[in-house]
């Protein structure tokens, strides 16, 4: 569907970004080819794992993740060895970057939560490492069980809203956990995935604050956001790790993000 994205929109978007983006939010992504698998749908999912700027479509180089797998029926299964490296770029990028893809066969009813722990990404502009623990949930055959269970990552978002079958405009509510405990008053960055599969209209933000929406969690680590458009939405709750990583012998801070992706659909 990429061919459907109007070149003009992308050009306009690139210009807006170039002029207005002092802050660009990085997001880990896992986007499945379908988020609700019914008996008439293809049972083989394609999943794409990237490190991008979702609104701008910009790719960043992603080395092989540390962990990638699926939780289904309380069982955690590693799928790390199934990952294939692929190159991709946004229309405005000249260079291609590595991302990862795999196929997964849905065999049983129930919720399938896919998760990734990337290898730390060094961001010189922010003088820190970034690790985004990213999740997405795929429902299969009408059994709506498992979506509210934690995977057990260092930080993660636990949906309080069932994360599939969402209409545009629905309020998505989640709880941010840091080492298994609610994370109060942390920032949650929210971006629309302009590169959504099937997206035919690229959103061009009129100025920088529109690129990334920001909400904060309350005292219980809970946040909410109503999604105004059809497509994929990413929620990224950011914290600073208690641990450091070394670069050229110097200790550097690590930004850890709990990222969750949900799909909204227009009511029609």
């Amino acid at each position, binding site marked *: 569907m990429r061919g459907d994205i109007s070149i003009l929109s992308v050009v306009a978007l690139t210009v807006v970004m170039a002029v207005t983006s002092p802050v660009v939010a990085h997001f880990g992504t896992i986007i499945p080819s379908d988020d609700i698998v*019914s*008996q*008439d749908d293809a049972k083989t999912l394609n999943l794409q794992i990237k490190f991008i700027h979702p609104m701008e479509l910009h790719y960043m180089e992603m080395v092989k993740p540390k962990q990638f797998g699926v939780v289904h029926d309380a069982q955690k299964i590693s799928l790390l060895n199934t990952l294939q490296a692929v190159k991709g770029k946004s229309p405005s990028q000249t260079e291609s970057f590595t991302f990862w893809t795999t196929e997964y066969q849905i*065999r*049983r*009813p*129930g919720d399938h939560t896919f998760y990734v722990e990337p290898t730390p990404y060094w961001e010189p502009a922010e003088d820190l490492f970034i690790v985004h623990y990213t999740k997405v949930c795929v429902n299969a*055959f*009408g*059994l*709506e*069980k498992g979506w509210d269970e934690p995977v057990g990552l260092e930080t993660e978002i636990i949906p309080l809203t069932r994360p599939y*079958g969402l209409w545009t405009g629905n309020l998505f509510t989640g709880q941010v956990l840091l080492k298994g405990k609610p994370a109060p008053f942390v920032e949650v960055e929210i971006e629309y995935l302009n590169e959504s599969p099937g997206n035919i209209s690229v959103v061009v933000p009129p100025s920088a604050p529109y690129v990334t929406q920001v909400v904060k969690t309350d005292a219980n680590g809970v946040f909410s956001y109503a999604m105004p458009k059809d497509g994929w939405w990413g929620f990224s709750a950011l914290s600073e790790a208690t641990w450091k990583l070394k670069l050229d012998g110097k200790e550097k801070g690590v930004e850890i993000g709990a990222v969750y992706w949900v799909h909204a659909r227009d009511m029609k």
Partner: protein
Amino acid sequence: MKARFCLFILFVVTLLLSTTALGHKVNLFAYVEAGKVYTESYFPDGRPVEGGKVLVYDSQDNLLLEGMTDKEGLFSFAAPKIDDLTIVLEATMGHKNSFKLKKADLEAGK
């Protein structure tokens, strides 16, 4: 007024025909292992559909066999033939759903 009535009828027909989730929708899932067909019947939250009637039809709509789900919502049977099977679940109060088990799945699970 007439157009409005037609729309309403269309809506009702759509509801009747579609398998979209309703309040207490029942589901049936089936798979084949070692020549045996296993069915699981459940509500969306995972509660089993107990005492549901299971009807198995071949591709010509001939009823091949029928049975009843147990306490765990399970019912299994020896694959009656290698064909596209439609397995229908009829629970109480008119709750109904079906699952298509493809010939290829039966072939693979022989």
